[in-house]
């Protein structure tokens, strides 16, 4: 299965992280980092298991994702940088 972006997934989707794209999006005021870098630092690395466990209505944004045993809240815009392989999709 070809990898898809995490931002396209709905609640209940699970699988493994395939890659994090360098989207060069700036993160924060004191930006010397990017979203992609922080995603890697938080553990979005290839092979890590994930599950989309929640969405906020309306719009399904932001979303809550379990990565390994840690939960993260992120917006679809940030999730766009994460490529994942969906299980049983």
């Amino acid at each position: 299965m070809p990898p898809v972006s995490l931002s396209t997934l709905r609640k209940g989707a699970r699988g493994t992280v395939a890659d994090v794209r360098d989207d060069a999006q700036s993160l924060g005021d004191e930006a010397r980092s990017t979203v992609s870098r922080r995603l890697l630092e938080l553990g979005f690395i290839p092979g890590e298991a994930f599950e989309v466990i929640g969405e906020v209505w309306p719009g399904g944004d932001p979303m809550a994702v379990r990565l390994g045993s840690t939960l993260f809240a992120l917006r679809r815009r940030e999730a766009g940088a994460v490529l994942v392989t969906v299980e049983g999709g």
Partner: protein
Amino acid sequence: MPAPAPASEALQLALVGVPNCGKTALFNRLTGSRQKVANYAGVTVERKEGSFVGPARGQRYRLLDLPGAYSLTPTTLDEAITRDCLLGRLAGEAPPEMVVCVVDATNLRLNLRLVLELRELGVPMIVALNMSDLARDRGFQLDRARLEQELGVPVVETVAIREGGERALLERLESLPRPPARAGTEWHTPTFEQIQATQRDVRRILHAAGYAEPARRRALRQLDALVIHPVAGPLILAALLFFVFQAVFSWAAAPMELVDAGVSWLGQALHDALPPGALRSLLVDGVISGAGSVLVFLPQILILFFFILVLEDSGYLPRAAYLLDRMMGSVGLSGRAFIPLLSSFACAVPGIMATRTIPNVRDRIATIMIAPLMTCSARLPVYALVIAAFIPNRPVGAFNLQGLVLFTLYVAGIVAAMVVAYALKRTALRSTYHPLLLELPEYKWPNLRNLLLGLWERARIFLQRVGTIILALMIVLWFLSSFPAPPEGATGPAIQYSLAGTIGRALEHVFAPLGFNWQISLALVPGLAAREVAVGALGTVYSLSANGDDVAATLVPMIAQTWSLATALSLLAWYVFAPQCLSTLVVVKRETNSWRYPLIMAGYLFALAYLAAFVTFRVASALLG
């Protein structure tokens, strides 16, 4: 008992760790109440330092609790401070001689990367495996000795929330030789490949140390299914917020009355004990009632912070921020701005103090700037007085006209706040797109000791830093209202002849376009102390002899006769913005660490209040003839 060896100079330690690792609890455990809370030079980031003595050798330690950081590549001001301090780049801060890196034993995959990054820096380090009891209880497996071997730095188990849970750390600290002085450290931001390599290293080390995580408990999964559910989540949040608001609003009422009664009693006792004169007036009307005006905030601050600390400690607050992200984001504010803003309906002082849960500086300042637009309880007496005098008590459909007017005033404040926030975030406080990448930490029972220390810390900061300035200003205000004394045979109230009276008369020229007479203008001066004081001051200028609650009752017919409806509406519009609350401005000064923001706040609120009252007066005058 042998005399302790002459203690050498205190060793500089720093606590480092990712957010939610239990770092502050460990700091509290090590230092108890021997803490100093200030700010890092020139920024709003809180600096906490404490001290402790090693039990075996009497070595003294100075412990700096660095802000939580996921990485040495900062994305927040907090993280930048932590990195700069570790690298010795922070003005006025010596780099620590040794670092205690706190890691959450129940979340090592996320925590261990920072340890490897710090190891790279070459700073002498001890790793504290915190919450190790919880990890065991929940079925985590880890070989501590093997982890120590793999990392090449000492690893000790700690339980920050239990008495004696710091012992292993203390013993290990004291057994280590004092590290030699270091020169400044170099640090290069790692590349993507390097981060990935470090992460692989983390996985390899954890595997070697036999680290195994149990599946998340069913009960916790079910709790989250409810708490972050798209429908149930917001409902639970609304119920919680309503409860907190109720508590701040109504639970605080009794202790506030108690403070009030205590202050009056003390004032009366002093009044009876002293001969009449300026000294008695200074002590009773200046110092005692000034101190009362500080202390009266304390119940609200304590109750609000009790809830915030519980919500923070339990892991709920980030989930609330997640649920509110979209809604608050529409005006450019952080999801975490909700609690401070809600609290500001009771009083802006605790609300502004509560903004410290907002990590982004610009979001925080924007929230502080709009907090006074939430209709605080001190405005109610003024609203109640004017509404009772001018708005007929008659039904409008299912509603009551007086209630509708009051509701409109609340809504006007909220709408104004949203507009101001929107404008600020698009101009002066514009920030680049601010991503949301928020860890939702595991639920935990709040710890009572941490709660009490947290409350004590807030109370102390408020009384020391804010209280002293408010008290000083109250005394100045007393001076303005008392001197010079009225001339012999004067018939008007004393305040009319004082400096405050002179200022009020001068202000009349400023406020005449708003329809304010000299009595209103004068009442606005002592109203600086607290907005509701304006009611009492109006009573004084209208030469009423009644006291306390009776003032309003006697004032109602008086102002109903002497003010026009346009003037009354104009005063209501003025009070929606009402810039004149010194306590708020002082707390803003303390929270932002400069006079810049309180001055801007006073300026913009004054301008908006003037504009709103002017327009209201002109339109009302034109319509009502």
